[in-house]
């Protein structure tokens, strides 16, 4: 896996250059975390651009495009400095090592990898470009040709670096997404609480939420980009947050929904002026929307009469609510602990966390609206997706609850 690790390091280095441009206030682990996430997104965008330009993917073409762009954007080389180490970081590192062992243990096994994200990545890799003919003609269900392509393109980035497709090595991307998000979380929590230990604690607590158990699926990148976007926007780093939002939208349709949810969150937090500053998110998401329309890639949610389906499901909402009630939103003890914890800090949460709370609520409302428009059997659709959808918003929600629970050393000082 040396080639794949080297590719991820290259992407992270290019990403750090982008992060320095987009987030002047970023330093330490925040800069590295943003760099990892921006870097993987940047690599995917480079492959998308090369494909649109008709340039076949080769190691040289990708290297020239990435290093060339990074060199143009770089002002000076200054390695990011790290904040003080906390003993709690050892817990995170051990768990992350365990996650790495799991994610790279075998050729990726999830059916949605073999039948969707990995399949598209492998088909593109064989063609050394986005294979529009394949997307238009693939006949098995579950491929979702219209889904945004960031994850398959990220797989291709690793495969091009190796010069061959290696199923097991693709699991490294899950680790990189989790690491990128945890580094962002660690810095922001330390900054907010004034304590390195508190920052390390929040990162350790969020590891199981960032380290998605669905290896090779788009949940890991969506959680990483989406959570980083919400936390950066919450902090006031709007440009970096907007680019993260755009990368989330290039990962899954749920990421597109998150742009709307984040805008509603900003409105709820009386930051309407910042909504227009989300334009980079739309700019990153738009090319794929145009391409999928130009190439007539079908969208299952939009098939047939959407209005009739919504009206039909609204006539019998019990079906949906029963299905939601019967579904497992992750581990029950976790949500019980979250409910108790949120109750303890309910006042500061409602007073100061309107942005995240409103964005999460809006995102969940959009998910429920999507169920109403579903062309599938609703209980089946809910049963196979609700836990994953909840996993998209759980880390941001957990972060705001934890930082409100932990003592603020800055206030004490």
């Amino acid at each position: 896996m040396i080639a794949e690790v080297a590719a991820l390091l290259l992407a992270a280095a290019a990403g750090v250059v982008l992060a320095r441009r987009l987030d002047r206030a970023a330093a330490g682990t925040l800069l590295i975390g943003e760099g990892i996430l921006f870097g993987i997104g940047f690599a995917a965008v480079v492959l998308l651009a090369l494909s649109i330009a008709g340039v076949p993917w080769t190691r040289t073409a990708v290297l020239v495009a990435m290093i060339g762009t990074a060199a143009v954007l770089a002002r000076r080389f200054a390695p990011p400095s790290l904040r003080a180490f906390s003993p709690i970081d050892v817990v995170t590192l051990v768990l992350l090592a365990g996650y790495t062992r799991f994610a790279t243990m075998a050729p990726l096994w999830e059916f949605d990898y073999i039948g969707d994200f990995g399949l598209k990545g492998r088909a593109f890799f064989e063609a050394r470009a986005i294979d529009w003919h394949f997307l238009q003609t693939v006949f098995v269900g579950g491929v979702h040709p219209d889904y945004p392509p960031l994850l398959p393109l990220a797989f291709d980035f690793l495969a091009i670096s190796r010069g061959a497709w290696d199923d097991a090595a693709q699991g490294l991307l899950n680790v990189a997404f989790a690491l990128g998000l945890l580094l962002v979380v660690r810095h922001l929590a330390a900054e907010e609480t004034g304590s390195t230990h508190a920052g390390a604690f929040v990162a350790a607590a969020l590891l199981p939420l960032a380290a998605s158990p669905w290896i090779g699926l788009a949940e890991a990148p969506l959680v990483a980009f989406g959570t980083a976007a919400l936390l950066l926007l919450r902090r006031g780093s709007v440009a970096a947050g907007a680019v993260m939002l755009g990368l989330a939208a290039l990962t899954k349709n749920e990421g597109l929904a998150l742009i709307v949810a984040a805008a509603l969150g900003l409105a709820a937090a009386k930051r309407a002026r910042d909504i227009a500053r989300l334009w980079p998110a739309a700019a990153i998401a738009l090319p794929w929307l145009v391409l999928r329309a130009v190439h007539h890639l079908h969208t299952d949610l939009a098939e047939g009469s959407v209005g009739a389906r919504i009206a039909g499901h609204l006539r019998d909402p019990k079906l949906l609510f029963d299905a939601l009630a019967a579904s497992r939103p992750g581990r029950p003890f976790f949500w019980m602990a979250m409910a108790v914890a949120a109750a303890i800090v309910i006042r500061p949460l409602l007073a100061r966390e309107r942005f995240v709370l409103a964005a999460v609520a809006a995102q969940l409302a959009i998910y429920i609206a999507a169920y109403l428009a579903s062309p599938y059997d609703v209980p089946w659709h809910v049963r196979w997706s609700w836990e994953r959808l909840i996993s998209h918003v759980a880390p941001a929600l957990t972060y705001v609850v934890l930082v409100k629970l932990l003592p603020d050393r800055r206030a004490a000082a």
Partner: protein
Amino acid sequence: MIRRALGVVAAIAVAAAAFQPFYLRVFLVNRARMAAMLVDLPYRRTPGLRPFLEHVRASTRAGDAVLVTAPVQWSSAYEYIDARAIYVLAGREVLLPRDVGRARFVAVYRGAAGPPGFAPLWTDANGTLLRRAT
């Protein structure tokens, strides 16, 4: 002071409830055995399909049109097999049965009999690959 302590206890409770013990237990599992289980997981209804398709992949070239077929009776068997064949045979064109006229190869999982006009190229424990007779 009590409020602060309560907050710390609640934060620890959230972290404990979120904790994923598998990411520690994974150091103790038999890696080879678990990897073998995971490799076969997506193919569990069709034992031997993955090595068979890998063998077909090694015997064909990018761009070849391949029909994958199987004498299995259960409902949606073809979709199950095709969904996996398309992944393993990426770069080849995996055909629907109605397009057999365009096939250069026919891969018969757990069987040997192919359509007329095709001759066996090899047979292994999991099936037969036939090539269009020239």
